[in-house]
């Protein structure tokens, strides 16, 4: 509790700075991680369109470049919609650093 602010240090009027959700690492919620296979990808952008968290990264040429793991919650929609099965969902436990 000690990290919480007292009433005199809080902004007034219930206000908080806007756009603070950009700083929230929703990727921490993820239990399954999408692994993108660049060699299989045909850049149809179905995953980019369907991702609810704007976590599929694409460049100005319309090419998929990877996954933004800071925000990706691991819902698996990208893997489900991929016509080439170029995205595989794998458990986060495989990526725990020893």
């Amino acid at each position: 509790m000690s990290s919480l602010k007292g009433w005199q240090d809080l902004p007034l009027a219930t206000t908080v700075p806007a756009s603070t959700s950009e700083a929230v690492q929703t990727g921490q919620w993820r239990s399954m991680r999408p692994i993108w296979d660049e060699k299989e990808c045909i850049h149809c952008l179905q995953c980019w369109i369907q991702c609810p968290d704007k976590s599929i990264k694409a460049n100005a040429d319309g090419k998929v470049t990877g996954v933004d793991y800071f925000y990706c919650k691991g819902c698996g929609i990208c893997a489900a919609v991929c016509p080439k099965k170029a995205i595989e969902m794998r458990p986060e436990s495989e990526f725990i650093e020893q």
Partner: protein
Amino acid sequence: MPRKDITSGNWAVAEAMRQINPDVVAAYPITPSTDIPMRFSEFVADGLVDTNLVTVESEHSAISACVAASVSGARVMTASSANGVALMHEIFPIAASYRAPIVFGLVNRSLGAPINIHCDHGDSMAERDSGWIHIYCEDGQEVYDTTIMAVRIAEQKDVLLPIFVCQDGFITSHCFEPIEFMDDDVVRKFIGERDPLFPLLDVDNPVAYGSLVLTDYYFEIKRQQVEAMKHVEKAYLDVAAEFAKITGRNYPLVDKYRTEDADYIMVIMSSAAGASKETVDRLREKGHKVGCLRIRLFRPFPAKVIVDALKGAKAIAVCDRAASLGAPAPLFTEIKGALYDAGIHIPANTYVYGLGGRDFFPHNAEEAFMDLINKKMSPEERYLGLRE
């Protein structure tokens, strides 16, 4: 030059609104406050104000629109009564915690049922814990003057709270009496421009209002509102002093009428103070040392000045135009608490009067004063003007 006109309490509010020229008025009509938005809508139609008048489908929407406009940075006013006020209830604490300095013409009327359009204070007393400033006015002049002062008090940076300017339904709102109006430019200079703290329209400094907080921060935000209330008395006194310099009209926190040497004091609010003061004069002529203390500022409750005014009395009669069913009446409870905190034990009678607009006559006031003079004191609630 200030001008005098014969007008009503409601029209006086509307005239103040015309002079204040608020950015937004969102209102829904309800008797007896209907005259306020109705008259003001004529000013809008005639192009006399720049106000965006938002005509909504309910009081709940009216106050919701007011809150949104106020936190956007607009100067906002509205009016309502009774069940309209009750329908707004959900939004009142939100307005207060968003620190939205809305100025509200509250025309006191009984809450149904039974349905009744006449005055008592049950509607505003039900909002006494909603976080708004409450000022109760005795007559139309005071309503006009207070509406203008309210803009400044509410918008003061260390206050930033919404404010009810209460007047008695029909008695004050519809009776025509001479009222002195200030010049438009004097009013506009007095109120100045609103300088909002966190306007939503300031896109360079974006904020969010009313985010979810749970056990972590709710308590702290309420504590901030407690602090804001502590600044109201000083803000009020500063604004009232400046107002008095311009108009010559003084509005202290409480109106002390012949209380200085009084043995017996009646404590009362709003228009009924007239009958009380009249009775004070009559009883003084008969040699009774009586006085009347009218409470103007009710939230925050100015306990210290009230105790100072009452501490020399032998007995007091507290008159409430509202009942707290199953408990002592609201004003009486506050007065008792203030005296207790000051360590003063004055015998006090509690009277409820005027519910549903029942007239309060000088003989009703005399009945209460004579109880004090004849030492007929008891803690039981008494009723003035009620048929047993």
